[in-house]
């Protein structure tokens, strides 16, 4: 009986191991395929940015030559990487960074304060205000964009940095995210500080804000991506290259008759670098921010 049983068990274990091994192989292969699908366009973008002939880039598209460059050159980057003149993409990149940093910086302060007051403040009608904030979130940005254009143009704000920053500082989503985070912190923290005589602002600044690093990181990342990817709004409110962000500037390469693939690719690589660096630096927060915003938002 035992003589017969041992080979059977061994065979079963072997078979299970082999099926686990096969599963791992399938999983690895699937991950590789998915990674390839995601990475290959980025790789193609990088390769194309190193070719200096826009017609060649177009001719190479659709074949494996799109992933190969025989004589790489940085000439596209040299052409567009100026701070002034015809192709001042260095300037546009700086403009985008200024807009991003200002929007995120001011957004963290304003939204966290609003979230804190809604969670712990003694404001009357907090529940109603919170409901209104949540209700505002369902209104798509596009539906208010034209009235907003009229407002900012009457205020004489067009073609400025401010017009690309101010309207996007306060956001119902981020107020709600902060509210949720602050509301989950123990009541005792607030009460103890209150007994010690701390003002509401002091409690916010010295106790709750330092504890809210995960929320700050989440909002920074989400706001940063949103600001970086703004396209329609800056088109409507910028007129010259003074405050033009890089996303709008890249669109100049897509003309009525021809597309300047060489420079467009190099400019896209330039645009990708800061957001890629941000992603690599805050990879852990990045993943949790999406999970968090999906669950909470």
């Amino acid at each position: 009986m035992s003589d017969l049983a041992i080979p059977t068990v061994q065979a079963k274990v072997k078979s299970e191991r082999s099926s686990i091994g096969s599963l791992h192989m399938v999983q690895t292969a699937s991950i590789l395929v998915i990674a390839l699908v995601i990475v290959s366009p980025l790789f193609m973008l990088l390769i194309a940015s190193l070719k200096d002939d826009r017609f060649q880039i177009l001719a190479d598209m659709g074949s494996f030559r799109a992933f190969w460059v025989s004589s790489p050159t940085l000439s596209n980057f040299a052409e567009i990487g100026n701070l002034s003149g015809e192709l001042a993409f260095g300037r546009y990149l700086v403009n985008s960074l200024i807009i991003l940093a200002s929007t995120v910086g001011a957004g963290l302060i304003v939204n966290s304060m609003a979230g804190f007051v809604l969670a712990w403040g003694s404001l009357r009608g907090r529940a109603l205000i919170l409901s209104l904030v949540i209700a505002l979130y369902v209104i798509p940005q596009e539906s208010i964009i034209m009235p907003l254009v009229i407002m900012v143009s009457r205020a004489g704000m067009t073609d400025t940095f401010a017009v690309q920053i101010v309207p996007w500082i306060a956001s119902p989503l981020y107020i709600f995210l902060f509210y949720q985070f602050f509301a989950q912190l123990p009541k005792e923290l607030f009460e103890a500080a209150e007994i010690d005589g701390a003002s509401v602002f002091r409690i916010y600044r010295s106790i709750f804000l330092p504890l809210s690093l995960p929320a700050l990181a989440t909002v920074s990342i989400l706001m940063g991506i949103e600001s970086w990817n703004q396209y329609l709004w800056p088109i409507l409110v910028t007129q010259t290259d003074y405050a033009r962000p890089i996303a709008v500037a890249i669109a100049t390469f897509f003309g009525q008759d021809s597309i300047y693939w060489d420079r467009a690719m190099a400019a896209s690589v330039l645009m990708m670098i800061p957001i890629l660096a941000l992603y690599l630096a805050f990879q852990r927060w990045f993943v949790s921010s999406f999970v968090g915003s999906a669950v909470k938002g």
Partner: protein
Amino acid sequence: MGKRLLSFLMASAALGGIAEAKTVIHVMHQGDPGWVATYGEIAKRFEAANPDVDVELIYAPHDAYNEKFSAAVMSKQLPDVMELDAPFLANYVWSGYLQPIKPLVDKDVIDDMTESNIAQGTYPIDKDLYAVGLTDSSVVLYGNKKYLEAIGARIPKSVDEAWTREEFEGYLEKLSKLEGVKWPIDTFRGYGIKTEWITYAYGPILQSAGCDLIDRKTWKSVGTLDSDPCVEALTMMQKWVTNGWVVPQSSGTNQFFAEGQPAALALGGHWFYAEAAASMKDDIVVMPLPKFGPKGASPNGTWIWGITTASEHPDIAGKFVSFMLKDKLYRDYAREDSAYPGLKSFAADSPLYAAGGPMAVAFEQASKTAIARPPHPAYPAITSAFMGAVDEIFNGGDAKAALSKAAEKIDEDIEENDGYPPFDEQQ
């Protein structure tokens, strides 16, 4: 010290006064970085020649120009001078955004316009000119010389020698069997269904076949767009697609000159020549669009310049437009960009389009077969409905049903707008 300060303040005030006395005109435009830089230079030169004028350029990317224009309309910030896509002219004039340009622009510029250029800038109600451009556009049939020679195709050298429908379809069939040819023709489905390409390039096939997108006298689409010649023309194009003769949308817009040159013919815009010739050199032949019926037809229209009704200085705006259209830098850059001439003097100075030039046949089309897209305020609805119908037909839909639906949609839009008076009175 006090006196010096007072003098400084007085001088500053005087300078401020001069600065305030300057007339500012706003010019809204689109274009790639080369064009943006060119307009910038022209503005500087105009300012140097007219020290009392400041030109402020307002830029919008080509693909988002309509959104930017809508925002300018809503915020009551229309510029003095604006670049506009020719088929939208009727809509803008009807909406009251543009003013007649003839009295504002130099007479020699007006006299220099080609017939096609005049057609693209004319409003059909008052027959007045509302916009003028240095350039125009057209679509021709590009051919791969070695493939055409291999099937023994006749190569037309002028518009009068254009292929007939029978010849054209016969060549498509022969090319489909020729080794090395994957697709007999690229009709640039790769430009997608949301661009103006479908109406611009395929509309003339209907007109050549003997019908149109809309009846240009009654301004009714039912009975015209869904008439037998139109249904037959679209069924013919559907057959090319189902036969596998046409480069699919997913294969992009470079199959005519990509490695191996898998497409033998290309029904492409004048701008395609530069892209294709760069790769194919002498292997490319440029032919007129085939005659699909009783007459030849080709498209026209491009981005042209108009002066808005909101302009407080229309005379200076007109002076700027005249200055720009005659400017050497503007013409040099347009020539480098293979721009299709809209002014006779510019054509004479463009070797690509001059007699004997590789694109001469394209320019010949401007005077012989060019038909402007329907100059009607309902044009946005017309082009949208037609694009939808073509997409449905190319994806296997019934041509008659799709065109009838599109025609009804166009007529509905016109009815909803009470016939866009006074267009309704033309009937």
